[in-house]
């Protein structure tokens, strides 16, 4: 019998979630027509652990699309860091890996508590992948990087759930449900479920991270970037849906009183045309990644090569969101990387 794994009967699942909702704001996958999104929930009936993929990654519960940084008024400015207790429930392993990368990136060099304060107040419960999205390639990307940083992991079995406790924060959740220690057989079955799903991943990279990073870097001056990006709209969708993208813009906004307001950041994307543009005055400007091929290349470099030393692997977790959402369907990292590897 495992000391860290517990079993929750199917019939007790809803009361567990009800218990969690009483302790913190719970963000979980819910259905929106034929899509899924991570959303704050008010009832356990909303939760859909059988989701395949959410439109936006769950990072938004920690690094929101728009976030107030500083409030200002006639008397000066005050910090807007106000974390609240949150539980991020039902996160697939690839999104756990992505959040772990953001933890490192917001902590390194200059600690950004605008992210980390909410992160430290967030308990993450992972869940097994029950349905596989069409463009996923999580089984073959960054295999050396293991999911880390979550507090518990829940795996669906036919008659209930195995709940693996990984941290003291995760252990606290046990108080909200009718858990029993899991049997060795249940633990083994959960392990099997999580291993077997890897075999069902539809898209595959045929090379390892080091090999890919080296070849992608070496292809910097290749004509492929221009060729592959010929139909790019520079819309930035691939950035916005990416769980490891964390670039942002900062803007000031006035309140209606016209004397107070907020300085806020909002997600930004390196595929957008003016991302690296500076004004020189007299209407002149300089754009350091003027052509879409350059911007398209920059994204792939960031995902496959530039951050690898820091992260121990690529800054891509294989969720397939960019592949699925790109209108001209040119953002799929598998296709780009395979094309480069074969060139």
């Amino acid at each position, binding site marked *: 019998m495992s000391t860290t794994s517990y079993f929750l009967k199917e019939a007790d699942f809803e009361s567990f979630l009800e218990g969690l909702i009483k302790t913190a704001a719970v963000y979980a996958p819910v259905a929106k027509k034929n899509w899924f999104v991570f959303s704050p929930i008010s009832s356990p009936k909303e939760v859909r652990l059988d989701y395949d993929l959410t439109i936006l990654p769950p990072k938004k519960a920690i690094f929101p699309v728009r976030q107030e*940084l*500083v409030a*200002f008024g006639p008397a*000066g*400015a*005050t*910090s*807007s*860091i*106000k*974390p*609240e*207790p949150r539980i991020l429930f039902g996160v697939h392993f690839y999104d756990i890996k992505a959040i772990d990368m953001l933890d490192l*990136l*917001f902590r*390194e*060099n*200059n*600690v*950004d*508590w*605008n992210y*980390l*304060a909410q992160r*430290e*107040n967030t308990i993450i419960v992972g869940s097994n992948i029950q349905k596989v999205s069409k463009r996923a390639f999580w089984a073959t990307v960054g295999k050396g990087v293991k999911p880390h940083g979550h507090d518990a992991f829940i795996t669906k079995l036919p008659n209930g759930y195995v709940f693996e406790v990984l941290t003291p924060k995760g252990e606290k959740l046990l108080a909200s449900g009718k858990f029993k220690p899991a049997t060795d057989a249940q633990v083994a079955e959960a392990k099997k479920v999580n291993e077997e799903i890897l075999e069902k991943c539809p898209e595959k990279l045929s090379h390892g991270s080091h090999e890919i990073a080296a070849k992608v870097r070496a292809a*910097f*001056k290749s004509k492929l970037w221009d060729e592959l990006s010929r139909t790019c709209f520079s819309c930035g969708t691939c950035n916005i849906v990416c769980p490891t993208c*964390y*670039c*942002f*813009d*900062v*803007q*000031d906004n*006035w309140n209606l009183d016209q004397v107070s*307001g907020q*300085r806020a*950041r909002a997600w*930004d994307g*390196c595929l957008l045309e003016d*991302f*690296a*543009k*500076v*004004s*020189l*005055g*007299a209407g002149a400007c*300089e754009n*350091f*990644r*003027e052509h879409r091929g*350059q911007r398209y290349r*920059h994204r792939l*470099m960031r995902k496959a*090569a*530039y*951050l690898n030393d820091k992260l121990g692997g690529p800054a891509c977790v294989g969720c397939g969101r960019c592949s699925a959402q790109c209108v001209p369907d040119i953002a799929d990292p598998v296709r780009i990387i395979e094309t480069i590897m074969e060139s």
Partner: protein
Amino acid sequence: MSTEAQSGSAPHPNIFLPRPAEVVRAKQVTATEKHFTLKMKDGQPMTFEPGQMLEISVFGFGEIPIGYASSPTRAQTFDIVVRKVGRVSSAITALEQGQTLYVRGPLGHGFPLDKLRGHDILIVAGGIGLCPTRSLINYILDRRSEFKKFTLFFGVKTPQEQLFLEDLAAWRKSKDVEYHETVDRADESWKGNVGVITTLFKKVSVDPGTRVIICGPPVMYKFVIAELDGIGVSRNNIYVDLERRMKCGIGKCGHCQINDKYVCLDGPVFCFKEIESLEEAFR
């Protein structure tokens, strides 16, 4: 905050929270540039190295990155020069003496003083590239004995775009710096050299062991570096001060990246050798 009280953690310092600085002097120096002298309102000295930068803002309009235009060797105040270009810089250049500017800094890495001391120095400044380099120029002048021969080139498009006129007058007469200036297009008032900044190389002899600092519009770099190559200056001894779009200044927002380097963290001053092969560095 209640959640902090619950978790018992200390308040979280907010790296985006700027500090107020008082404008102690504001002077319009060209049609578009305004020179500010600032003093921190909290009474703390602004501690920085020549070549570092800061984020400056007027609330309700936004923030922009800017280099220090004064030397840390001088006074309890610091200088910046802002060109009126867009929404934020228009709001900043509207400020007058006694008003408040918000600042975050110092940010980034400045000029490598340890690698410059004991050597001949050449600074090549184009247009408002003189602003961040002025922090080093005055530093060298204040600690003149630490450096050998000191040469300064300054080029602008027209005489009206010259900045720091009092400084220029002093440098023209100074024995501590060999100062040369040029304009691309002269007018009747101009008696000096006419031509792009590289025409000044004919007027001096530059030792190949010279440490060179370049700051100016992006187009200027390759021509200056071609001259230096001709002289035989090692690219390891050339330093460039780069400008980029920046939103955070702390290595997060992504805007200033040149390939895998962050200008705000790894720069804005770079050894040319380090970045010469990066396609996005100079265009």
